């Protein structure tokens, strides 16, 4: 055993106390990074994005080789779907124009569906993958704000959890944070069922959609998209597909397991969706009844 002198012991104890204080300070649900943190994050982020460029290039080569090997099979599959696609495209176009006309008729301008896309490159992933998050190279100076939805071309992957001037952190859907909820809806054949995505099953690696009205029939294979009702995300971003439907613990509502459509393992380019409609401020669901509206003047909401 090493011998401790009194002085060393005191330093050790003070160190321990400082450590506990620091950890508990940083464990709080913080909305903003402190100034030294922002400085470190931005400078490391700068170095990181320099390294990320060649790294992305190399992984790109591997990916290209892999896709080259599958070309034939993929081509055949795609050819089959191409015919369906033409029909679908025509249908979408008519629906779109019809939607626009109806909107004009109603004089309703902003839809929950509208958003401004902002492209960003993933520069890092939290290496010790305990908390699922990635770091991207766009920050508050590019107009990124907290709680914006982040997606790939395939579907929703998460939301912005922390912003510094030149980088921001994205909390992925695969998180154990109980406050991370996404209001979602199941696009059924006839009716639409609303629910909340709350957490994920670590053993199945699937998301859990809870609080679905038990009178609504939903089935395996149906698509789940964001509903835009949580006040943060735009409407209609694809989340995934239902793989199993069960009843929740108390039997009052249904829950479903969802396989996400986005691929979480090789994230390179992401799109930040800046919602055009009024955004409700604040973290979603910290159990308070505080007025979360940003006083942006929704007509008919009553004066203060």
């Amino acid at each position, binding site marked *: 055993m090493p011998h401790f002198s009194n002085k060393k012991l005191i330093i050790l104890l003070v160190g321990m106390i400082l*450590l506990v204080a*620091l*950890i508990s*300070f*940083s*464990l709080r649900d*913080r909305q903003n990074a402190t100034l030294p*943190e922002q400085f*470190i*994050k931005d400078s*490391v*982020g700068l*170095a*990181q994005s320099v*390294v*990320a460029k060649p*790294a992305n290039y190399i*992984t790109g080569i591997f990916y290209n080789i892999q896709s080259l090997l599958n070309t034939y099979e993929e081509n055949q599959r795609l050819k089959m779907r191409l015919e369906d696609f033409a029909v679908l495209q025509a249908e979408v176009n008519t629906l779109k124009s019809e939607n626009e006309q109806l909107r004009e008729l109603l004089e309703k301008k902003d839809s929950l569906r509208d958003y401004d896309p902002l492209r960003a490159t*993933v*520069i*890092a*992933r*939290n*290496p*010790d*993958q*305990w*908390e699922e998050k990635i*770091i991207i190279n766009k920050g508050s100076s590019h107009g990124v704000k907290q709680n914006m939805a982040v997606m790939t071309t395939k579907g929703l992957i998460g939301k912005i959890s*922390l912003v510094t001037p030149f980088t921001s*952190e994205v909390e992925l859907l695969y998180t*154990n944070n109980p406050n991370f909820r996404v209001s979602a809806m199941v696009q059924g054949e006839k009716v639409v069922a609303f629910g909340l995505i709350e957490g994920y099953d*670590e*053993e199945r*690696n699937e998301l859990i959609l809870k609080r679905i009205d038990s009178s609504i029939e939903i089935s395996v294979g149906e698509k789940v998209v964001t509903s835009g009702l949580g006040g943060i995300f735009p409407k209609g971003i694809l989340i995934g597909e239902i793989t199993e439907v069960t009843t929740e613990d108390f039997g009052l509502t249904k829950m479903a397991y969802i396989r996400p459509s986005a691929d*979480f*393992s*090789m*994230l*390179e380019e992401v799109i930040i969706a800046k919602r055009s409609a009024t955004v409700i401020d604040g973290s979603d669901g910290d159990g308070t009844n505080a007025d979360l509206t940003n006083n942006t003047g929704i007509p008919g909401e009553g004066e203060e």
Partner: protein
Amino acid sequence: MWIRLTIPFIAIVLFLLEPEFALFSPIEWNGEIIYLVPRFLILYLIFISIYYSRKRAVTYGLFFGLLYDVFYIDIIGLYTVLYPLVCYTAGWSVKYIHQHLSITTILSVVLVALMELILYYFFHFIQFTTLPFKEFLLIRLIPSILANLLYLIMLGWAFKYLIDARVLQKARELS
């Protein structure tokens, strides 16, 4: 001159490479999703601690641990303590074991496994994860350790070569 700068330079490169490799993970293997956690930097620091200087390794550990905490983890004080602690333990063990490359490799991997274990209990304690221990062992610890062992087998000799070069250089400067 350049050997002197190479040692911190490699530490920086490894620090920046870790998250790039983390982008590959999790991977699907035999129907199981497994996580590979790159621990390049700490393995390198353990080598420095054993072959070069414990004090230097602890200083590097403190610096990079702090960066790691602020940039990736957002829990300040976790890696800031664990990195120097692991380096210190590695340097302390030099007195009791033989410094052969294979033994150092095994010792480094064991130390990293211990660190992972501590991290698991910490994150379990603060409820960041609900992963049962057995699952943790199967999908995180064992695959990560194997991957890091592979990395060390490939690059361990290079680290030793570089550090030995630096030690020799220092000895020459002194004489």
